[in-house]
């Protein structure tokens, strides 16, 4: 019975509003006081029932709730025969709850969209070899599944047979289809746009990357900062305190009207709801833009960041070195390139890979007597020629003469930030190759956006030599650059910055930078959906997209502001109402209820603005 009444709250509000209108029409137009009174009594009675039930249920578990305050207030209004007010107050309270429900659902919509992308069913291979549709919960690791065109990949798995294009936007934020064939990894929640895949399940349910992202976002939207915990504690004692206050007022003034007005206006709704709506709307916005913010503590800290420290390789740069400059000291370049490709294709060194990629398809000779010189390069016999590939130190060891022109070239190449590879054949220098990592596109604009947002110190720390790091810093307009740093040096440097009182965010790829990520006030991982990155950091930029960084920072600032505005609205309304109840004559219960409900809607609507946030300029 109780549950039935509660489920019909919205209809009750509707009936109540009709009764109230009937009452006022009969009073103002037909001057009929009797119908007016009965209509108001009826509206009050049916309106108070669901509220009273909620109040009673709360009391059973020892909670003094807003419903109790309203129930007592309406009862009091009845006693002093203020029927008009009791009817209007119950109606406003019910109608307010209805509006809150509608608007709250809206603020939560962004996150709901995300969770609804979770796969629900899978085609699982049964013992008889047939594929049958089952609930995704029934899939275990090791099961063989069939994924058809247009359907969602149900688990994280490996492709056994078939090929196709998969849209991985749910994981990476990038909606360009990715080609998958045998042995490719596929992720739960991504969509197979064409083709058919047979996959084996590696991770299921909450263990999948998508499952982790959802869990993280869900945890984040309800995680609480210090301020919020304070408000929670405060509101726990606040409601009983209002009850006590109104009782004391009644005891001294014997004025029931005044006492019940205090009950109504003391309702703390906006205060309790204000901060959570900001965080749910803000985090939801982030999730849409590929920015995962792990909770309100993170948001508060991030919004105050004045120093951002970057890792260089893989963060500011693509992390994939390429041949940028070449110079040959012979006319027979083909022979040099062939020898070079032959040697380098046997090596796994990043520079060697870059060279092989640069040369492309060519004639390969047999390579004999390969000797890898530590910190130098490779010496080998190719096509009966003695070929040395490596740095200047190796050339010296090989007694290769380096003339003045070459020396000038080397200096010139180094200035551009290249790592150098020299090639000699039978003791003569034949080629100079400059290899460097490319700066990610758009990083420069992003850095200047961050500056405009008030980040004063932008620092790059790298294991590369100082010259290379300086060059990157100059090109991007960073404020400081430090090279030759090991992971532990980076961590120490961050500690030093924090001692100076700076709020430090560290941006890294999350693989070898975990100490720095953990140590910084805010660890930001450029993770293409990798587990480590998602777990160790405070903020995850999906798809390693650098341009999300300014969105993340701007959004954090906007959320922090929004929370503050909501607290001010909530506290302000209560203070103004309390003041006016004592110092003005126009305050009554209905106005108090109207203001209370309006302030709740105001904070929800204010929070909703965050759903539309995007970085400008």
């Amino acid at each position, binding site marked *: 019975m*109780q*549950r039935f009444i*509660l489920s019909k709250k919205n209809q009750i509000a509707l009936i109540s509003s009709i009764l109230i209108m009937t009452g006022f029409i009969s009073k103002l137009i037909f001057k009929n006081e009797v119908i007016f009174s009965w209509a108001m009594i009826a509206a009050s009675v049916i309106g108070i029932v669901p509220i009273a*039930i*909620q109040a009673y*249920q*709360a009391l*059973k*578990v*020892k*909670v003094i*709730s*807003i*419903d109790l305050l309203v129930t007592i207030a309406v009862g009091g209004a009845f006693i002093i025969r203020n029927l008009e007010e009791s009817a209007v107050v119950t109606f406003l309270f019910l109608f307010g*709850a209805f509006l*809150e*429900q509608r608007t*709250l*659902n809206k603020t*939560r919509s962004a*996150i709901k969209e995300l969770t609804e992308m979770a796969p629900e069913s899978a085609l699982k291979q049964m013992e008889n070899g047939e594929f049958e549709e089952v609930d995704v919960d029934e899939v275990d690791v090791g099961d063989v599944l069939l994924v058809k065109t247009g359907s969602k990949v149900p688990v994280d798995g490996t492709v056994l047979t078939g090929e196709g294009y998969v849209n991985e936007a749910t994981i990476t934020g990038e909606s360009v289809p990715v080609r998958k064939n045998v042995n490719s990894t596929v992720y739960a929640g991504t969509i197979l746009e064409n083709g058919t895949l047979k996959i084996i399940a590696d991770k299921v349910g909450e263990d999948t990357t998508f499952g982790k992202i959802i869990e993280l976002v*869900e*945890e984040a*939207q*309800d995680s609480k900062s210090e301020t919020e915990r304070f408000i929670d504690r405060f*509101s*726990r004692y606040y*409601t009983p305190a209002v009850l006590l206050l109104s009782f004391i007022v009644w005891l001294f003034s014997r004025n029931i009207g005044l006492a019940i007005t205090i009950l109504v206006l003391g309702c*703390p*709704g906006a205060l*309790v*709801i204000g901060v*959570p709506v900001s*965080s*749910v709307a803000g985090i939801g916005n982030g999730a849409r833009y590929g920015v995962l913010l792990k909770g309100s503590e993170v948001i508060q800290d991030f919004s105050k960041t004045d120093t951002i420290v970057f890792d260089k390789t893989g963060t500011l740069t693509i992390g994939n070195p390429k041949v940028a400059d070449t110079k040959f000291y012979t006319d027979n370049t083909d022979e040099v390139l062939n020898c070079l490709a032959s040697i380098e294709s046997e090596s796994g060194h990043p520079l060697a890979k870059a060279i092989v990629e640069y040369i492309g398809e060519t004639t390969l000779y047999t390579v004999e007597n390969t000797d890898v010189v530590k910190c130098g390069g490779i010496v080998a016999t190719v096509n009966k020629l003695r070929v040395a590939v490596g740095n200047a130190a190796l050339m010296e060891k090989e007694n290769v003469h380096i003339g003045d022109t070459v020396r000038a070239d080397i200096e010139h190449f180094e200035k551009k930030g290249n790592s150098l590879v020299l090639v000699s054949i039978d003791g003569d220098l034949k080629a100079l190759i400059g290899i460097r990592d490319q700066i990610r596109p758009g990083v420069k604009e992003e850095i200047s956006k961050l500056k405009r947002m008030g980040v004063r110190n932008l620092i790059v720390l790298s294991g590369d030599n100082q010259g290379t790091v300086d060059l990157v810093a100059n090109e991007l307009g960073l404020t400081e650059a430090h090279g030759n740093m090991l992971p532990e040096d980076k961590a120490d440097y961050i500690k030093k910055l924090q001692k100076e009182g700076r709020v430090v965010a560290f941006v890294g790829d999350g693989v070898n930078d975990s100490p720095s990520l953990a140590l910084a006030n805010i660890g930001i991982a450029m993770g293409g959906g990798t587990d480590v990155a998602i777990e160790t950091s405070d903020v995850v930029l999906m798809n390693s997209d650098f341009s999300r960084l300014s969105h993340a920072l701007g959004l954090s600032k906007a959320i922090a502001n929004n929370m503050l505005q909501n607290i001010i609205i909530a506290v302000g309304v209560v203070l103004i109402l309390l003041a006016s109840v004592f110092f003005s004559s126009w305050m009554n219960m209905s106005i108090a209820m109207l203001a209370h409900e309006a302030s709740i809607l105001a904070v929800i609507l204010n929070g909703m603005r965050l759903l539309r946030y995007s970085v400008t300029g």
Partner: protein
Amino acid sequence: MQKATIQLEALVCPSCMQKIENAVKALDGVNKDSVKVLFNSSKVKLEFDAERLSIENIENAISSLGYVVKKSQVKS
């Protein structure tokens, strides 16, 4: 101790959280420090002793307050 995640119908009123929290904490066999009511995702997370009460007991305590339990998951 078993870990339970109970999904409720969307929570809208702020005082719901306190009610649900108190009701669940009052049950014998529930680890009081573990009870978390998540307002935005409308979930209750808690740890309980399966020998002293069942998940149904917990669901009943919540639904008798007037909140609809959509589904619950128990993990040991």
